[in-house]
């Protein structure tokens, strides 16, 4: 029983999970902090909508290993470039869902608010944002699940995380090691998916 990989590597798995969660958590927090305001901005400054979504789109298409590699000359190795890369990947789903969530608010509701004398800020904070929240959270959920997966590759630039097991397993051709990284990573992704999905349904507004 003590041969079972999850138990044999237990303590290190916990340590790597901690690193993994830290990478993803910090990256998603930054992506939310920057992405949601940007998503709101492009609903107000429509001229910026196309360029900002295009940039986020392009960032999304850069292969992850290349992204990590490209960041090394700029910020070196370790957790910092990993967090930057994960943040950049998370922008698209968060910005896009913020934008579609807010522009998807019923025109009659928006116009009623405007006609009753709400300022743009009041309309955003009291009406548009609460009504768009479940769509925005769906974006956060997608971004988080993607980031959990991509973060395994961050081990290649010395950022730690569950990818350490995977790369080591590949190097020494040991499936148990690969699974010791992959299974916890999958579990984190599933939990995040479920947890944020639950939040989403809590904030969904019946109409």
């Amino acid at each position: 029983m003590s041969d079972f990989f999850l138990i044999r590597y237990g303590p290190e798995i916990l340590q790597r999970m901690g690193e993994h969660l830290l990478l993803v958590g910090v990256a998603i927090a930054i992506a939310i902090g920057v992405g949601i305001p940007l998503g709101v901005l492009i609903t107000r400054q429509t001229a910026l909508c196309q360029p900002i979504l295009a940039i986020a789109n392009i960032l999304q298409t850069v292969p992850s290993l290349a992204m990590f590699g490209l960041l090394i000359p700029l910020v070196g190795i370790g957790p910092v470039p990993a967090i930057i890369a994960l943040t950049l990947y998370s922008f698209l789903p968060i910005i896009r869902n913020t934008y579609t969530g807010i522009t998807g608010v019923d025109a009659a509701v928006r116009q009623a608010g405007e006609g009753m004398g709400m300022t743009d800020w009041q309309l955003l904070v009291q009406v548009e944002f609460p009504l768009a929240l479940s769509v925005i959270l769906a974006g956060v959920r997608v971004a988080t699940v993607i980031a959990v997966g991509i973060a395994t590759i961050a081990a290649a630039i010395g950022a730690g995380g569950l990818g350490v097991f995977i790369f080591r397993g590949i190097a020494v051709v040991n499936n148990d090691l690969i699974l010791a990284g992959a299974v916890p990573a999958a579990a984190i992704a599933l939990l995040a998916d479920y947890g944020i999905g639950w939040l989403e349904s809590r904030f969904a507004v019946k109409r």
Partner: protein
Amino acid sequence: MPLWGKGMGQGQDRAIAVEFQAVGLQLGGQTLLSDLNFQILAGECLVLLGRSGSGKTTTMKLINRLLTPTQGTVRVEGKSTLDWALMQLRRHMGYAIQETGLFPHFTIAQNVGIVPRLQGWKPLQVKARVHELLHLVGLDPAQFGDRYPHQLSGGQRQRVGVARALGADPPILLMDEPFGALDPVTRLELQQEFRRLQRDLGKTVIFVTHDIQEAFLLASRIGLMQTGKLVFLGTPAAFAQCPEPEAQQFLQTLTAVPTV
């Protein structure tokens, strides 16, 4: 200043609540409205009647400056809408639209209390006002206050829409087909109640509809709009005699009840 909301005066000396002076509107190279010249007197119910796309809703949006005219001036209580502080102008008039535009994430009480809250009333004042308004539109505050719009029937939602428009006791009400989505029986019920309410409260009402029956029921005057112009303005009785082809078209929609 005139005494807003003091019921229907009989004389011709009633104050002018809203005035359109040579108003036109172009948007994107298209002429949406032209040559609008008319006055709406305090306490009257002016019904803007017309087909879809005739410009009646657009005309209404000029009053609370959701749109601004490209020619001429719209005056509210003597002052050009451009000289009003925008939010003050809008909170000075109640606004109800088709499908009500109720906020789905607000309770009924929160919806009705929006404008008083925006005006900075104290929570207790807002609560009392909401209570009063829900009674006024025939909804029991204890029963409905904490519900959400999706838990109400269409007719109940429209009542909430009217209550919300009356929120901070505005002298002017803008109603854009507020009863348009209701079944005919509920619609008549609400129209009759709304007429009673309007007369009791003495509000100035601008009411947009494409339903001539509704116009006859509610209007002190009917303004008929066609392709962005006002082609007739007068009492319902005068409208019934109006030779204008567009008016005749509308009159023809009043189908007779079949006799046995």
